[in-house]
């Protein structure tokens, strides 16, 4: 595969293999989901987890959107107790990576009905795994439109639209949202 950065000059390499990795970490920096796509970058689970720890330590306090770390450009975004990261080569168009992060965050947010927090994510882990798979295929951006990613990944047949939810469900989700808005 055309993964490696063979280009000598400083032009961007004309390749579709742009995403080196994506991950979601919890508020302790532990991996909830992570995928690495380049067979030359962070190949063992040990290396990956060490990188994730380092990345988390450098980013969890500063909400600075982007960081260059260990030869990778990482864009990130957090909410409540979840941290979303997209990694690319340091010779890559940052704005393309940013668009992938937006797709990841927005898709997950829609899937979790805007309750972007660890507990709800774990309850819907299968759908989030499918969303991961719909956004990036082996390092190639497959789809970056959250609407269509969710249409392809959210397939739970008994998922009822908001209008048909029971009063209890609506109350529960309202309570959750209130809880976090107070804690922020």
């Amino acid at each position, binding site marked *: 595969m055309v993964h490696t950065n063979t280009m000598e000059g400083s032009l961007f390499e004309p390749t*579709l293999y742009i995403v080196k990795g994506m991950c979601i970490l919890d508020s302790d920096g532990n991996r909830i989901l992570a995928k690495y796509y380049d067979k030359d970058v962070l190949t063992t689970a040990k290396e990956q987890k060490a990188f994730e720890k380092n990345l988390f330590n450098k980013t969890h306090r500063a909400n600075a959107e982007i960081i260059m770390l260990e030869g990778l450009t990482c864009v990130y975004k957090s909410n409540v107790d979840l941290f979303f990261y997209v990694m690319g080569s340091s010779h890559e168009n*940052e704005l393309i990576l940013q668009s992938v992060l937006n797709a990841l965050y927005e898709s997950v947010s829609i899937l979790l009905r805007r309750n972007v927090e*660890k507990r709800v994510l774990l309850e819907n882990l299968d759908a989030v795994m*499918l969303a991961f798979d719909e956004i990036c295929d082996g390092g190639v*951006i497959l*789809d970056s439109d959250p609407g*269509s990613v969710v249409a392809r990944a959210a397939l739970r047949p008994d998922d009822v639209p908001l209008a048909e939810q029971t009063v209890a469900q609506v109350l529960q989700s309202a309570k959750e949202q209130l809880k976090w808005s107070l804690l922020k």
Partner: protein
Amino acid sequence: MSVFKRDKKEEEEGGGNPYQNLDKTIVLQESRYFNQTPVNPRKCCLILTKVLYLLNQGEKFTTQEATEAFFATTKLFQSKDVMLRRMVYLCIKELSGLAQDVIIVTSSLTKDMTGKEDLYRAAAIRALCSITDSTMLQAIERYMKQAIVDKNPAVSSAALVSALHLSSTAPDLVRRWANEAQEAIASDNAMVSYHALGVVAGSRKNDKLSMVKLVTRLGRSPLKSPYALCLLIRLAAQLVEDDDSDSSQSYIEFIECCLRHKSEMVIYEAAHAIVNLRKTTRDLAPAVSVLQLFCGSSKASLRLAGARTLARLTAKHPTAVAACAVDLENLISDSNRSVATLAVTTLLATGAESSVDR
């Protein structure tokens, strides 16, 4: 607040995470449940999620364990539940590198790939291409060609991206699909057009003349997809770099045109290419002013992109960067440390005595 405290405690005990402390042997035992009929989609989905979670956490599966799990998973093809089927595809992909005899699911996947359900088709194509080797590719070649020009964008993209992956192992075969891919470049769907351009460009990598034709043709009637445009800019920039003659002027003009695109991604891509290609400071002016604007953006990734490309320019054209000194000085105290560091190093390389005082 009491609600929160209870939640917090639960989480500490691991009660909040149903996937914590999963045991591989127990999960593998649970996968025997897949043999039961009728299939309980919910329960099976949960078990598959556990298997995928363990793999994702870096748990090592032996060949035998992976093969066992894989064969258990294949039993689930009898269920028609969409979510379950999609999780089965995902498991097939994840286990395909570890398990033996994975080609056993070829016929099931081929059936899904040519079936009526679009959601199955796209995912089945991707799973199928992850298990096929080049000898079996010929058997599905006809379906792949059809899928590339399918009117459903998910199906078309799945086939194109799979073709791209396969081109590393079977380049000659995939090159035969270039005509279909060429047709797909004109798709209204942004991603299909992007993936198609990637496949076509990949197949012409070693044929400069046809690459020139491709870039010239697409440069005249620019693509709608921002991603595809970024790729086209890269291809054009590469042609300029390889060719110093006047004929490369048309590519430069195309790239300069992209500076006025509405997508920031494309604008940056063009500015970056120009900064790395242009030889005189005067030619650089439009690109540099775009990067200058980026440095003042409220989005950190834009500021970083702008500062990084300017930093790279210092080696070649320090005077062009000197004009942006004020913008870079504003970035020294940037809340993003990567941006601040870049700004400082760039200023140190270009700075004059006068700017040190400020």
